[in-house]
């Protein structure tokens, strides 16, 4: 196994023993970027100088016997949605081309304090709106398992970079599945923590009642270790929970004996890929063999979740994106006559088609005469969806389902059909509407070699148990050891 193929924790143990230095690991990432990123196109910006300086500082700390934490020196990447002081931060949008963040978001600060070198900023759908990274304002990212296919989205650059061995792990954001779906399509573990678990200060806002930050990694233990670094209360985010974080690695090997896992019947629908369904049902059977009680459960309002989400998220986005007006930062249509034209021309030129579509949809849903019929109605249905989960979690400890109804699809296949693209989130977005923790982990491959993801959903703040269920399944397989044929 080559250096760039190690898991974060495997690398960490080699850094601790002195077998490998952080500079060597960081150089391995940079070499890998030079080798494969021309094909994969995961990076928007590589920070070679900054990453190597951080790696040197890490090696000095290790040498002095004072590492900043267990992951000190492990190089990672960041979705371009995170404000990173001194580095370009575009959120995948032309409207922020050339924007250099004036400060670090909280999670970026926490990564730096824990000693993790940041290799660069990773591609995404513009403002995190999309499920294929084709809505990036710059270029689409490709799936390392099949370069003619999407790595998913919106955190597609983060997923592709980790899968391709360009970084050891990455952070993404998940508003309706944007960590879990790309993880599923690239054979990774992707975790969306409970809403409030991780600070969103310095994370460019999409839909503020849904957005959450989380890790994309090659193993469940890596996801636990990276969550440990970023999960803490932050007074700068009023939605940040004031709860202590447990030791996510401590109970990881606890197994599933004695746990009750629910299979929601509404998540096995017509039109689902047969190979995906077979793999997920086989995973459920395996968890039963490992000692879990697997029962049928019901989330009766599931079929309303997509409509609910695609009213609430665009409504919030239309408000959040009002700030891109050409005045304080980003693009300005300097040739405009007067202020109103300056706003309209700047936004027309800076935003891509999917972002405009969602701003239009959200503005309509919030406009006079339609607010009650659309936005308020969706918020009420959101209550029903949340109650479904509350009911289900009275009987079960975790819910298991497919992450995505299909494996990675071809680039270009769905770009002209927004509703078909929105359907890619059908199994991931109810979890965001309810604010719950959810994870995707590898559970097999299609006959043509494309990864399939298993989703595990948990009770509020119960990430530890979600991770434990995932780990119980993971250790029976070598999916996490598979690498793409790049």
């Amino acid at each position: 196994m080559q250096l760039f193929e190690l898991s974060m924790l495997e690398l960490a143990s080699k850094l601790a023993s002195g077998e490998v230095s952080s500079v060597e690991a960081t150089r391995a990432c940079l070499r890998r970027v030079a080798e494969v990123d021309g094909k994969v196109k995961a990076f928007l910006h590589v920070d070679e100088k900054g990453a190597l300086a951080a790696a040197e500082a890490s090696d000095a700390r290790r040498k002095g016997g004072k590492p900043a934490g267990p992951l000190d020196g492990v190089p990672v990447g960041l979705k371009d949605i995170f404000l990173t002081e001194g580095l370009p931060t575009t959120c995948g949008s032309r409207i922020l081309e050339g924007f250099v963040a004036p400060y670090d978001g909280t999670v970026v600060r926490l990564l730096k304090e824990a000693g993790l070198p940041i290799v660069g900023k990773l591609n995404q759908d513009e403002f995190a709106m999309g499920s294929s990274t084709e809505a990036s304002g710059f270029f689409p990212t490709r799936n390392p398992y099949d370069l003619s296919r999407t790595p998913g989205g919106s955190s597609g650059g983060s997923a592709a970079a980790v899968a391709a061995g360009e970084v050891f792990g990455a952070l993404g954001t998940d508003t309706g599945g944007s960590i879990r779906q790309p993880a599923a399509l690239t054979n990774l573990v992707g975790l969306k923590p409970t809403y409030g678990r991780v600070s969103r200060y310095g994370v460019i806002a999409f839909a503020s009642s849904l957005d959450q930050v989380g890790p994309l990694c090659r193993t469940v233990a890596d996801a636990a270790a990276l969550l440990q670094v970023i999960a803490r209360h932050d007074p700068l985010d009023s939605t940040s929970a004031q709860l202590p974080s447990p030791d996510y690695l401590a109970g990881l090997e606890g197994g599933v004996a004695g746990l009750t896992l629910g299979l929601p019947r509404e998540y096995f629908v017509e039109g689902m890929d047969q190979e995906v369904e077979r793999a997920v049902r086989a995973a459920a059977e395996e968890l039963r063999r490992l000692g879990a009680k697997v029962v049928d459960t019901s989330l009766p309002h599931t079929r309303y979740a997509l409509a609910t989400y695609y009213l609430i998220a665009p409504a919030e986005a239309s408000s959040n994106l009002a700030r891109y007006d050409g005045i304080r930062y980003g693009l300005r249509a300097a040739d405009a006559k007067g202020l109103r034209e300056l706003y309209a021309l700047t936004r027309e030129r800076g935003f891509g088609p999917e972002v405009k579509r969602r701003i239009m949809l959200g503005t309509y849903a919030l406009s006079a005469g339609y607010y009650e019929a659309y936005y308020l109605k969706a918020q009420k249905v959101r209550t029903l969806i949340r109650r479904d989960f509350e009911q289900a979690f009275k009987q079960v400890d975790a819910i298991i389902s497919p992450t995505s109804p299909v494996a990675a699809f071809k680039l270009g296949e769905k770009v002209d059909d927004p509703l078909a693209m929105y359907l890619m989130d059908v199994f991931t977005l109810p979890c965001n509407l309810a604010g719950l923790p959810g994870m995707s982990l590898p559970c097999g491959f299609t006959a043509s070699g494309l990864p399939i993801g298993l989703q595990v959903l948990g009770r509020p703040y119960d990430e530890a148990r979600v991770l434990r269920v995932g780990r119980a399944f993971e250790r029976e397989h070598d999916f996490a050891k598979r690498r793409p044929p790049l």
Partner: protein
Amino acid sequence: MRLTLEQVRHVAGLARLKLGPEEEQRYQQQLSAILEAMEKLRELDTESVEPTSHSTLSGFLWREDLSRQSLEVEKALANAPEKVGTAFSVPKIIE
């Protein structure tokens, strides 16, 4: 639910977007299809259901109102498309 072209233009105006004629037509068609799919929610009786506006499960938190260091003016202005001294420059607002 079929949006008219006037509605599309009205919403674009509210959103401060200047759409080209082709875009207007494309959005008319696409947004109509999306809104039609959203009609599904009408099947549900939500008369007595409280809306959920947020995912927060532990309520919002207030912190002490303490003064703290803000971003330096230079840094705050560093990304401005146009600036004058310590201010953002904007087009004339009052004719």
